[in-house]
């Protein structure tokens, strides 16, 4: 509708007919025109958008999101088209649209559910708002710049035991290797045998029993563990790149979860790309124990992506990444392949006093050779290309433990 044309025509008619009452019509039309433009231009400025949701979720969870749109103005908003951008991985289609009306100082809520089907760090928004007047004279579009994020943790496969031994004499995870006994973990008393050190004699109990008794100590290992996750895109088979890298992240998350459950310090070092930092610098999280540390680690694992720009090979990077780790720390290298360079790098770590373990995540027919090479160089190698490969660490608690 061309109101300006109508106003000019009415004015011309006024001049022709000297009809003063037409001024009233001109005022009304002009008022509608000006108000429509002002209203439409002002509406986006008085809108406030807020998302209410849980910003962290586990894989498979359903996260309800409430998009609250509030009109802070005194004038109502006759129509508002809301177009919320959501990640396709969590919601199909990748938008949520609705047309609503907002009363004066009122609010409206748009609700949708995110299906956390894939780990990652996702953006919610921006939300595009279109509005206009009642007469089709003006429309306005605005993009609410606020973008929120949701972190979907990677899948965690519960492990019941892990055949990882340590070179440290103190720890919290029981082992049947009676190489080390923890002096603070007394499990009972036994009769003195020739050769038992004198400080092991329990004098009070001996006096009570009238015979020499020595303390019986539990055997433990300490697993200060650093997970080395290789996410250098070039080292993955192009055909299996996506699946294998995702699987590597799942394995890393599962191991970290298991060790944290055993109250062991776990760290993470990866050459993947964190979209939050965006600079492609390798990430290092020194071994720490506790749930807080696990959450940090899982957040990194949720965000991390294959690094296409990484130029330093894993074998070279592993040495630099582990340089500050303490003596005896277990280094679990999760990598797509167990080639000669990787094995040599882990061997060097072994020689530097670390306890290296190789986990290969890409299906490989040459794994036998890798295993043989690793055994020769003095560290264990595991092929964990499929979920069933994790069964060796998922045996029931009472079943005999696999020991290297």
């Amino acid at each position, binding site marked *: 509708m061309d109101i300006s044309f109508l106003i000019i025509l009415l004015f011309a*008619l006024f001049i022709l007919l000297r009809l003063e009452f037409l001024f009233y019509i001109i005022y009304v039309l002009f008022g509608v025109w000006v108000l429509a433009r002002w209203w439409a231009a002002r509406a986006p400025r008085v809108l406030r958008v807020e998302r209410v949701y849980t910003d962290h979720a586990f894989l498979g969870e359903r996260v309800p999101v409430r998009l609250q749109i509030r009109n802070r103005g005194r004038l109502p908003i006759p129509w508002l088209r809301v177009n919320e951008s959501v990640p396709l991985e969590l919601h199909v289609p990748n938008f949520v649209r609705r047309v609503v009306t907002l009363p004066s100082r009122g609010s409206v809520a748009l609700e949708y559910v995110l299906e956390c089907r894939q780990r990652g760090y996702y953006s919610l928004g921006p939300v595009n708002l279109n509005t206009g007047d009642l007469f089709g004279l003006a429309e306005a579009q605005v993009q609410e710049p606020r973008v929120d994020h949701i972190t979907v943790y990677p899948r965690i496969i519960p492990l019941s035991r892990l055949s990882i031994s340590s070179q440290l004499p103190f720890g919290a995870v029981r082992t049947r290797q009676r190489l080390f006994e923890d002096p603070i973990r007394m499990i009972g008393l036994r009769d003195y045998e020739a050769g038992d050190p004198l400080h092991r004699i329990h004098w009070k109990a001996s006096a009570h029993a009238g015979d020499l008794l020595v303390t019986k100590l539990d055997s433990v290992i300490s697993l200060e563990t650093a997970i080395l996750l290789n996410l250098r895109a070039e080292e993955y088979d192009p055909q299996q790149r996506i699946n294998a890298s995702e699987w590597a992240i799942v394995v890393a998350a599962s191991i970290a979860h298991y060790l944290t459950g055993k109250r062991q310090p776990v760290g993470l070092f990866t050459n993947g790309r964190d979209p939050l930092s965006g600079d492609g610098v390798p990430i290092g999280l020194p071994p720490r124990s506790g749930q807080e540390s696990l959450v940090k680690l899982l957040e990194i694992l949720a965000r991390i992506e294959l690094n296409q720009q990484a130029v330093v090979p894993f074998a070279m990077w592993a040495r630099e990444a582990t340089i500050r780790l303490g003596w005896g720390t277990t280094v679990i290298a999760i990598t797509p392949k167990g080639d000669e360079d990787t094995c040599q790098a882990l061997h060097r770590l072994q020689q530097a006093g670390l306890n290296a373990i190789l986990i290969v995540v890409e299906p490989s027919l040459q794994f036998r050779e890798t295993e043989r090479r690793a055994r020769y160089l003095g560290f264990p190698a595991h092929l964990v290309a499929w979920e069933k490969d994790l069964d060796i660490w998922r045996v029931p608690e009472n079943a005999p433990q696999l020991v290297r």
Partner: protein
Amino acid sequence: MTSEATTKQEVETQDSIWLKGIFRPIMVALLVTCLAAGFVAVAQSASPGWGRGIALPFFALVSVESVYTTLWLASSTQRDRRTTRFYAGEVFLLLLAARIVAFFIKGEWPNGAILAQWLRSPLSFLDGTTTFLWFLTLLVWGESTLMMRTLERMGLKPDELAMKPLLPARGMDWNEVRARHPSRSALLARFSAHWLWGGLLLAFCAGLSRVELTPSSGQLMGLRHLGLTPLLQAALVIYFLGGLLLVSQGHLAVLRVRWRYEGTPTDPNVVRRWGWLGVGVLAVIGLIAALLPFGSSFILARALVAVINVMMQIAYVALLLLFTLFGLLVSFIHFGQTAEQGGRAERIPPPVPETMSKGVHLPDWLGGAILWLLMGGIILYSLIAYLNERGVRLDVRHLRRLWAWLQTWWSFWRRRAEQVGRRVGEILTLRRPAQGGIIQTPWRFLSLRRLDTRGRVRYFYLAMVRRASEHGLPRHPAETPHEYEGNLEAGWPELEAEITSLTQAFIDARYTTHELGPEDAKRAQELWKRVRSFLRQRDRQDSGDRADSQTAS
């Protein structure tokens, strides 16, 4: 499929919100009746009393009938009736009704003679009134049908409502569905144009109705402008405001189709509140517009004058009360005198200013001036917008250049004026008679707290200079601080260190740019205090010596 399911599907495939509303049919009927009112008013201006109050209600009925029939035919079950024969029958019946109304208006019913005349001369059946009524009946029927059909076509069709889930299975997409139906924007544009030209026609009729044809005073035809009848004023207002509401509804239809095609769910409140919001907006604007000038006087001005008058009346009453109270007070004070004076004439109350009792009258030209200012602004703005929408951009560079030149010109002359003012001030200051050769500056209170560090240091040094002048060591204007320092040290050798330090502090404060801290000001103050206490001590000593010598003498 059960009957319940069938009913549900039927409900879902009907745009019930759009089709069932009575707002649009009523508005269309009103609009067309208003249009007819314009023609009736013209007829009444030519022949006063024409229509006898029957014509307009008849056209309103015709309009309602046309609107209802259009809606009834729009139903899918009445598809077979949408034929030329049906429309012809409808029009025939309406024309017949119009002929009966013509009998009412003329007040002569057919009798034998009239029937015989119709037989002899069939054209006599169509007298002027009948022809005019038929013309208007056809106009009202056509306009109502066209407007209502346009609005009805703007609603969502069953295939648009229901087919989306079925489209992929049928290998179709929305574009095919869209192609089947007319563009709602085009329909809205057509409706708007129709309303616009109808409005202009109504305005033209209103203009014509004001002209009275009076052949008199030897002229062939005399023209006399009359005021608009309230009916016509109401018709104009209802037509334009109602039309805007219908345009607003049309815009809603365009938006609904757009949202439907892109699959955006719509809150039902959007449609429900739309009409009320439109009515509210137009009511507010209509009310404000009624206060604006559209003649030599206007309601707002009259209201303003009324408010001012009321306020002045209140002030007048208050003043009257005050004077009365004052008079009473004075009478109490002079009570005794009043008793003595006995029958002296009563005190005449002070006359109230004459202007207080009069109301305020805005000048006659004010209404007209505001009107033309407003109208000029509106027309200019509309013209610019109209041209802009058609790609004609006004070149404002010349205006900007002119504005910049005006600003430069203004600032130049302002600077000149300031320079002249300063110069005049200087001349006046120089010519001011000096007392004792010293220019007396007005006394000013100096707050040390308001001074910055440099200012404070300078203050303490100048205080020392003033004291020194009082004690016979004045500073010559040509003396540098160091030269003066030498003189002071010669006069007060006990204060050599203080004078040197204070002079150096002054030089730092006056001639350097490096940062000075508060401690510098504090140090200068300490130095000045020492100088002052020394001078006081010396003064006391001198006065003691003088007293001793006086006692001795």
